[in-house]
């Protein structure tokens, strides 16, 4: 891959994540001081549940592709809402294998999705940790200000 193509990807992925995170921050205020943490935590719980369900579903004798597609769709939606673009893209690939009912392909995609999820989880956790540290040190968390 060309360097500039890679650079563009880098910018797209980080922009997506920070743009959504910034949007979440906008919705947080004194009356909802933990909104960002709540949403991100929900995303973690929801995703892990879906990934477990997907693992189980693909492990069956008779794979229910319709159910799998529904799960992947859900995961795609929530990762999109949180700005986890790579997870979302991995879900898109996953769905095309569901459509053609290709178990091998689905299994590979599931691996991919899991990997991307763990990466974004690490990033989000780092952000949240930093937030806590800032607050503990008496500072205010900077508002992310990306222009989409």
């Amino acid at each position: 891959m060309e360097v500039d193509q890679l650079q563009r990807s880098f910018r797209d992925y980080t922009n997506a994540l920070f743009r959504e995170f910034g949007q979440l921050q906008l919705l947080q205020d004194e009356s909802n001081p933990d909104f960002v943490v709540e949403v991100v935590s929900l995303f973690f719980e929801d995703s892990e549940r879906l990934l477990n369900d997907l693992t189980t579903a693909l492990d069956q004798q008779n794979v229910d592709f319709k159910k799998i597609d529904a799960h992947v769709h859900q995961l795609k939606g929530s990762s999109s809402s949180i700005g986890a673009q790579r997870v979302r893209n991995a879900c898109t690939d996953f769905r095309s294998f569901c459509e053609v009912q290709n178990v091998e392909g689905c299994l590979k995609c599931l691996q991919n999705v899991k990997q991307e999820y763990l990466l974004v989880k690490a990033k989000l956790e780092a952000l949240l940790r930093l937030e806590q540290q800032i607050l503990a040190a008496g500072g205010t968390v900077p508002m992310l200000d990306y222009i989409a």
Partner: protein
Amino acid sequence: MGMAAAEAQFHVLAVDDSLIDRKLIERLLKTSSYQVTTVDSGSKALEFLGWHDNDMCTKQELISPKINQESSNLRNIPVVIMSSENVPSRINRCLEEGAEEFFLKPVRLADVNKLKPHMMKAKGKNVQKNEEHSPNSEEEEAEIEVEINLESPSQAQPQASQTNSNSKRKSVEEGRLSPDRTRPRYNANGLTVMSS
């Protein structure tokens, strides 16, 4: 804030099977001073609107719907749809079927700001009708908008000749038809349905 008339608060019913999206949309709407109710399925949405399963006719039964006066109020419930996917054919279908707007997820504050004109318009339509009923109940003055998530798996029946994007709208319409129907709690004074 002394307004002579009772200030009707706009109420939005958001339908989405994703917990995260429900949380987000709720926050967005509350930030914009709407009253919000979230439900996770189409059937719960209809329940909320005052229909019960036994009252609702199935799609097959209803071929040429007749509209009666009461149910015509509900016709004014603005419906907005949202989806994380940009599928023009599906979106256009919904809009043709009567949805006011389509929002691509993630929904933004700017999108939520677009709701008000629809609710105002619907309220205007209902003012005359409301004068025929007793307009004092707070519920009847409540503006309601319902947001529906287009892609709830519960609605997902891609093989069906009626697409799910239509089924929500249709089931809302079909639900209005029986004259014996339980009177909906909300008088659709700008009830807006946001459906995903």
